[in-house]
């Protein structure tokens, strides 16, 4: 199968959906003439023109609101946030409007919309530019939140998000934009809410998402050399959360380490931990451990940044602790 970079896979999904459905369009800062701050939308303006690849003024709250209005009356907008950090400015439009209009209006109005962009740390972009925002969004009923970690999923989850009749958030990752992987040609849909087992193992389950998937796979490789066989699960969707796939794995391994970049307080990792301790209490041989970003704002200093985000060394440490319990 041919290989694509993650950013090309995202672009292919958007392009194919825009060809398929003329109601779909993309808007955001620099998505058109500049080809996207991270070149995800490269070439799309030339292909679709300014009415479907729209450069907007710098106002996240503004264009989120504009897109929500457009979605209410039959269009299907894709809204790019240059990074998810900036979505904080648009939070009210997402939280109180996109998410709630269907329910508040008794189903009279719907908002089929995709919000997308890179999430989490980049490289030395410091405290205001490195947020892992999933903790905030995965909390909200009415939203779906997906986090592709491979090029194939970047295409498949993006296409599913665009076709979904609900607001869907696609949390991409700047550090993954350049990775390559096999991507099916033509229609490729990855269902939202279904996790993927990335590596089979029998002794400890590692559940993770996004950029922490390759980090966890690297850790699993190191651990295998020590004779510890880990099963690595890529959740892919944080809402809905496929805890069933994790529970099945934990019933086999008896151990669970959850790895995420976001802060430790609450969030999808804590949610998963709660579900697994309820559903698999009799199978657990050790406490569930979360290996997370440190509970502090992201430092700019390279060394300190490395220490703040989980790496393969911290993941192996967590797994060893669980194995030794």
């Amino acid at each position: 199968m041919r290989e694509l970079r993650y950013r090309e896979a995202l672009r292919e999904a958007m392009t194919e959906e825009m060809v398929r459905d003329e109601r779909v369009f993309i808007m955001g800062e620099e998505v058109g003439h500049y080809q996207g701050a991270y070149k995800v939308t490269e070439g799309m303006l030339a292909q679709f023109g300014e009415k479907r690849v729209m450069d907007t003024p710098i106002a996240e709250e503004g264009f989120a609101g504009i897109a929500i209005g457009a979605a209410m009356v039959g269009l299907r907008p894709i809204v790019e946030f240059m990074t998810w950090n900036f979505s904080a400015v648009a939070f009210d439009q997402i939280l109180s409007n996109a998410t709630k209009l269907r329910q508040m209006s008794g189903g009279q109005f719907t908002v089929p919309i995709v919000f997308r962009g890179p999430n989490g740390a980049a490289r030395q972009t410091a405290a205001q530019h490195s947020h892992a925002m999933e903790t905030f969004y995965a909390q909200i009923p009415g939203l779906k939140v997906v986090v592709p970690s491979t090029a194939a999923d970047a295409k498949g989850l993006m296409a599913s998000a665009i076709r979904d009749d609900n607001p869907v958030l696609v949390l991409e990752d700047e550090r993954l934009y350049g990775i390559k992987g096999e991507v099916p040609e033509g229609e490729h849909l990855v269902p939202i809410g279904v996790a993927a087992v990335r590596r089979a193992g029998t002794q400890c389950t590692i559940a993770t998402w996004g950029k922490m998937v390759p980090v966890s796979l690297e850790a699993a490789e190191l651990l295998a050399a020590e004779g510890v066989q880990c099963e690595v699960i890529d959740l892919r969707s944080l809402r809905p959360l496929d805890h069933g796939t994790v529970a099945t794995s934990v019933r086999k391994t008896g151990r669970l380490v959850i790895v995420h970049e976001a802060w430790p307080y609450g969030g999808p990792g804590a949610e998963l931990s709660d579900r697994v301790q309820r559903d698999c209490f009799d199978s657990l041989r050790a406490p569930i451990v979360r290996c997370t970003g440190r509970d502090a704002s992201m430092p700019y200093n390279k060394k300190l940044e490395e220490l703040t985000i989980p790496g393969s060394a911290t993941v192996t440490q967590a797994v060893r602790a669980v194995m030794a319990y």
Partner: protein
Amino acid sequence: MTKVLASAQDPMFGLFRVIQDDATLDPAYAAHFSDALLERMYREVLRLRVLDERMLVIQRQGRIGFYGEVKGQEATPIATGLALEADDWIFPALREGAAMLVRGFDLSTYIAQCYGNSCDVNKGRQMPSHYSGRAVNQVSWSSCIGPQVPQAVGVAWAMKLQKKPQIAVGFLGDGATSQADFHNAMNFAAVFKVPCVIICQNNHWAISVPSKAQTAAPTFASKAIAYGMPGVRVDGNDVCAVYWAIREAAARARRGEGPTFIESVTYRIGAHSSSDDPSRYRDEAEVQQWRERDPLDRMRRVMSARGLLTEGAHEVLAAQLDDEIKAAIAVVEQGHQPQRESIFEDVYASLPWHLREQREELLATAPAVTHGGATH
């Protein structure tokens, strides 16, 4: 440039009026107002006044949870309902929801939105005075103050992209002009040149904050200048003036000439809401001054001056409208509580597994006794 917009050549200080002090209409505009239209305006303003009074009573009796009175500001919502095409989009703020009544939305179904029972199209999920109706293309405002205005601009933009004839009208109060979403809406509307009208009802008070504490600009209409769109200042207690300003702004939008900003200068005679006591922060003398410019009284005097209202007819009509409203309330109060599992409907387009699970959990518990009727 059309007449009213020309009259707003000075959005700083101009004030567009049609009803003159002697209760006749400005001859330049009189031809646009037939007896039938004037009768309709008068009747709708009166109905909204009577409805408000009745709804406040039932709020105080604890039959509904909250109510946002319109008193003194009826001209704008009524003029909006009459001036627009039936399928134009309306995004009201707190005091313009009644535009949908003018467009034929059923009165009891409207009142039901304050009860949130089985008669409510919103299924009991939205708080009172946040009126929505898909049937009349009206979308509830956001309690957070302002977010509905960029949404209205988005609708207008979608109409433009799809080459549809409808326009969108977004409302806000003077307080909301301080919000980022006011700026967002104004800027996007002008930059994208969308078919919309943004209307600020300047009622002089954002709860307890006076409009002069909200802006240092001489008028709200003057803000339009910086965004590159016409700003119009209209007497918001003059139904005819508001009607004509909206007509012209809507026609301009439909011709593809872009958005217009209208400042409707009015006054909130009543409290901000049923949770507010304005005597604590404003001078009764000021309220009295505005009572003398009451939009209903002015409309009533227009009617009398034209010989359309005979002695005693006002009181008879008010009583008749109150009877209609009481009958509509009686219909709503026959409704039952929404089914408890309906909590999980419309969260998503279809019910996901985790909500199915929560619904089963809820249904497995004994039905709780809820206030005001049977449970299901």
